[in-house]
Each structure stands twice: as structure tokens, then as C-alpha cells.
């Protein structure tokens, strides 16, 4: 079966400001299946937002293609909803209008009331209701703005939801609620989610698979770690699952040391594919004789 989203030989270079070029990543290849929830982890500046912008169709890569449903992505589309890292709300519109703006674009033949009710429903879902929705973004807190931006993207039911650190400005409690909402929305649909985060626990809670990026320049999507914890996952319970700490330690170790060690390796023309990593302590096929940590790397 063809993958839903396929990233092929993606290379991005920027002028480095001194007359030369800086390669953010080179020949990156990875795939995302339909309905999958994928998180990408990596240090600041490694190129996560750059990948996201290319997936959204907002930026052109230096070379390489992104295919969705078999078709090459060229330019943005309503099928790919984006929650931007800096919220990108329109400051002259009220909170509600920011959402209805999007809903109207997505469902042009809906009546005014239907658009309004739909927008209100999604704002309510992220905990914004009452007077607040008539305020301008400048009158909201950072976390509230972020939630408006989330509501705007969710309300449009895109096939692919691209989230750039969507919960970064939220307190732990609100973050938990909205994570649950995201899971609810995602599990009830065919939606595919691609999410950037800096929070390892959040990634484990939400993702089917975590892509790990090495430091830039010449960053690589080095590993694809399967989250072998069954759903539905409950925040308080997953830590007791035998795989939780094994996976978590693997991720921490990667971000702590290996992302640096693996950095800067120039692959040249060779396509870079992430190694699939499957850590499953409950799987009897894992031979304990090999010793802990039970870690198995399989090349594509």
C-alpha cells in the first residue's frame, strides 16, 4: 500500500548570511501512514519547523518532494491544517472571528449560524467561552491565543493536522485537557497528525511513532521509535506500563547525547532514512539473553 504521506529526498539549504549556504537537512526520507499520529523531537534549530512548513506547502524545499495521497504537494491546502509556532492569529479580528474566518473558508456553503455554532463549539472545546471569544487576540494571554489557534485548526477537520509546538505556552492542567481533546478528535476520524514537540512525555502519550532528529546543520531524521503502549492511554497509567521507561530512557539518551554525536554527518547523495526502533518488553520474541536494554534496530 502506498503511504499517505511520503517525504522523498528532501533537502533544504538557506543562505548563511556570509555569502555561503547552510544545509538544514539533506536527502531526508520518511513516511507517515494514514491515520497515524507522529511526533517529531529534536533540539531547537535542527529544522523541525522547516520540515513542517514544507509539509504545509508554505515553503519550497531546495530539492525533493512531498507526496500526499500519491500527489505531489505544491502550495498550501485546506486539507493540511496548521497550528503555527507563533499562533498567527489575525489581530484585527476577535477570537471568534478568527475561527469563523477559517470555518467559512473550509465550508463556504454553510449558513452564518452554522459557521458560528461550529466555531463556538471548538472554542469551547479548548476552554474558551463566554465574553472571552469577543476579545481581540492582543487582549488574551499567550496560552489563550495558542488555544484559539488550536481551535481554528481543529474546527476545519483537515486530513493532515500539522502542529508546531501547539501546547508550548500552556500550563500543565490546560495542556492535559487539550491533549485529551486532541486525542478524542484524532481517534474519532481518519485524521493524520504530525506534531512537533519538545516534551518527551507528551510525545509518548500521544504518538504512534516518534521521529528523532539529530542536531543541525545537516540534521537527519535518524530514528523512528514505535510507541509500543496500547491505547487508550491514560496519563497517570502509562507510566506503569513496562515499556514506558524503556522508551523514555531511549529518547532521553538520544536527545541528551546521541543527537549530538550523530550530528553533522553528511550523507552526500545517499538517501537518509530513519532506523525503525521497536522497544517492547512485553513481546516474548525479544530475546532476554541479548541482555538489557531490549533494543532492536531494524533497517528499512
Amino acid at each position, binding site marked *: 500500500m502506498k503511504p499517505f504521506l511520503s517525504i522523498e529526498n528532501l533537502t533544504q539549504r538557506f543562505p548563511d548570511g556570509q555569502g555561503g549556504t547552510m544545509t538544514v537537512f539533506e536527502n531526508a526520507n520518511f513516511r507517515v501512514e494514514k491515520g497515524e499520529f507522529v511526533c517529531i523531537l529534536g533540539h531547537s534549530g535542527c529544522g523541525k519547523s522547516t520540515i513542517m512548513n514544507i509539509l*504545509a*506547502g*508554505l515553503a519550497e524545499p531546495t530539492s525533493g518532494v512531498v507526496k500526499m495521497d500519491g500527489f505531489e504537494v505544491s*502550495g*498550501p*491546502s*485546506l486539507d*493540511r*491544517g*496548521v497550528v*503555527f509556532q*507563533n499562533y*498567527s492569529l*489575525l*489581530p*484585527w*479580528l476577535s477570537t471568534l472571528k478568527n475561527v469563523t*474566518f*477559517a470555518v467559512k*473558508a*473550509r465550508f463556504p456553503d454553510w449558513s452564518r449560524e452554522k459557521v458560528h455554532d461550529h466555531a463556538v463549539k471548538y472554542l469551547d472545546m479548548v476552554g474558551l467561552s463566554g465574553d472571552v471569544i469577543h476579545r*481581540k487576540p*492582543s487582549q488574551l494571554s499567550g496560552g489563550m491565543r495558542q488555544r484559539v489557534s488550536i481551535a481554528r485548526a481543529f474546527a476545519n477537520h483537515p486530513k493532515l493536522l500539522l502542529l508546531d509546538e501547539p501546547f508550548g505556552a500552556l500550563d500543565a492542567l490546560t495542556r492535559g485537557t487539550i491533549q485529551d481533546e486532541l486525542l478524542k478528535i484524532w481517534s474519532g476520524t481518519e485524521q493524520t497528525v504530525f506534531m512537533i514537540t519538545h516534551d518527551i512525555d507528551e510525545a509518548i502519550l500521544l504518538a504512534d511513532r516518534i521521529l528523532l532528529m539529530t542536531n543541525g546543520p545537516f540534521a537527519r531524521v535518524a530514528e523512528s521509535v514505535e510507541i509500543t503502549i496500547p491505547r487508550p492511554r491514560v496519563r497517570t497509567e502509562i507510566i506503569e506500563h513496562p515499556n514506558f521507561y524503556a522508551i523514555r530512557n531511549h529518547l532521553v539518551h538520544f536527545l541528551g547525547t546521541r543527537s549530538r554525536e550523530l550530528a553533522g554527518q553528511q550523507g552526500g547523495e545517499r538517501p537518509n532514512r530513519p532506523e525503525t526502533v521497536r522497544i517492547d518488553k512485553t513481546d516474548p520474541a525479544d530475546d532476554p539473553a541479548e541482555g538489557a536494554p531490549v533494543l532492536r534496530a531494524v533497517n528499512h
Partner: protein
Amino acid sequence: MVLSLNQRAAILSLALLVVGLLVWEFSIPAQKAATELTEYERLMGLGQERAGVPPPSQVFEKAWEQLSKPFYDAGPNDKGIGIQIGYSIYRVLTGYALAAAIAIPLGFLIGMSPVAYKALNPFIQVLRPISPLAWMPLALFVIQDSEASAIFVIFICSIWPMLLNTAFGVAGVRADWVNVARTHELGSLRTAFTVILPAAAPTIVTGMRISIGIAWLVIVAAEMLVGGTGIGYYVWNEWNNLDLTSVIFSILMIGVVGMILDAAFGVLQRAVAYVE
């Protein structure tokens, strides 16, 4: 009792006005009004220094007289102040509206397209610093109509601030907001109206406000040149009549109308303002 800042400022303004008027009133010695001079004295320029500036009391009297019947019309050289101001405002608004109708769409184009900006910039840079009155002879020659020439002069002087501010505002719209429009698949027309226009509106309206101010400055000079009607012509006519009271009164009226025009754009500016 503690007064608010505004109240204190109002009291100070009022005090300055009263003191200023009193100083003006009493620094002018009792004099024969210019109208009471004999023809001989007037021709010889006698009494000129003394008949120079009327006291404010006379100006008030004149203002009362003029404002109580602003729209009378007794022939080409004797029309009420309301009619004269009406002519001026009509010319300003016509020339200004034509300028806006061209400057704002063209400014949009220049702001959106670096090529258009580069191509048109040399023309703008050469045409912009030309005093609008320098166009007058050419306008009179080509258009052959003094009324239309005055409107043309207003057009040419108010187009530049609107054009440049629109281009600047449109070019400066944050890429993030344009990206929001793009991810929602808005067409270029809808993007222009629902994202770029509101985003650039504060800058555009600032340009419009500067333009209306300049247009009102220029109309007075233009009407002095073309004559016939308008507040500029009125000032010049009263000066020829040596009626300084009317001259001062009309100067004040020019100021008041200019202030009202500016205030109208101030309201518009507040309406389109937003905080990022």
C-alpha cells in the same frame, strides 16, 4: 479638589486664549478702520500702519455677521463664507477621491510586487517632490479650465502620501498572516480584502490623513491663483479690498475646516487600528 489631566489642560488652554486675545486687543491703539479712510488716504498708503491689524473684537463681530448668514450670494465677489468653503471642500474632496481611487489600488500593486515597485519607483521619486502649484500652468494650458485645474492640483498633491503609504503598508504585512490566508486557500482577491487590507489599513489611513492635510493646504494657494470661488479666492479678494478683518476671519475658518477634516480621518484611523 484634584483636577484630571484633561481638565487642567483645558483650563490652561482657555487661559492662554484669553490672555492672547487681551494682549492682541490692547496692543492695537484706537484707530480709524480702513473703510473710513478717504480714497486719497488709501491711494497714498496713508494710515496703512495704523489701519494694519484689527483687534479681535472686530474679528468676532465679523465672524458673527458672516456666520449668521453663511450662504448668501450677492454676485461673484460677494458670497457667504459657507459658499466659499463649500466650493473649496468640493474641489478638495473631488481631487482627493480621484487620487485615492488611483493611489490605493496602485499602491497595492506596488506593495505586492517587487518588480512593480522597482519599475515605478524612479517616476515616483521624481514626481513626488514637485510643488503641486508648479503643475498649475501646465494644467491650465492642457485642461483649459480653471476649475478642473484646481482639482488636478489637489489630485497630484494628495496622491503621493497615499500611494507610498499603501505600498509600504502592503509590503509590510506579516508573512504569517499571509500564510494563514494561504493555508485557508483564499483566492488573491479575498486575501487582499480580508487579510492584506485590514493588516495594512492603519498605514494606508495614515497616508490618507497626511494627504487630506496637504490637499487642504494646497487648495488655498490654488484658489488664489485660479480665482473665482473658494476660500483661497475669498482671502485674496478681501486682501484686495483691504478688509483685514475678513482676512483674519477666513484664516481662522481655514484652520477650523482643516482641523475638522483631520479629525474625521483621526476617527477612521482609530477604527482600523489594531494591537499586535
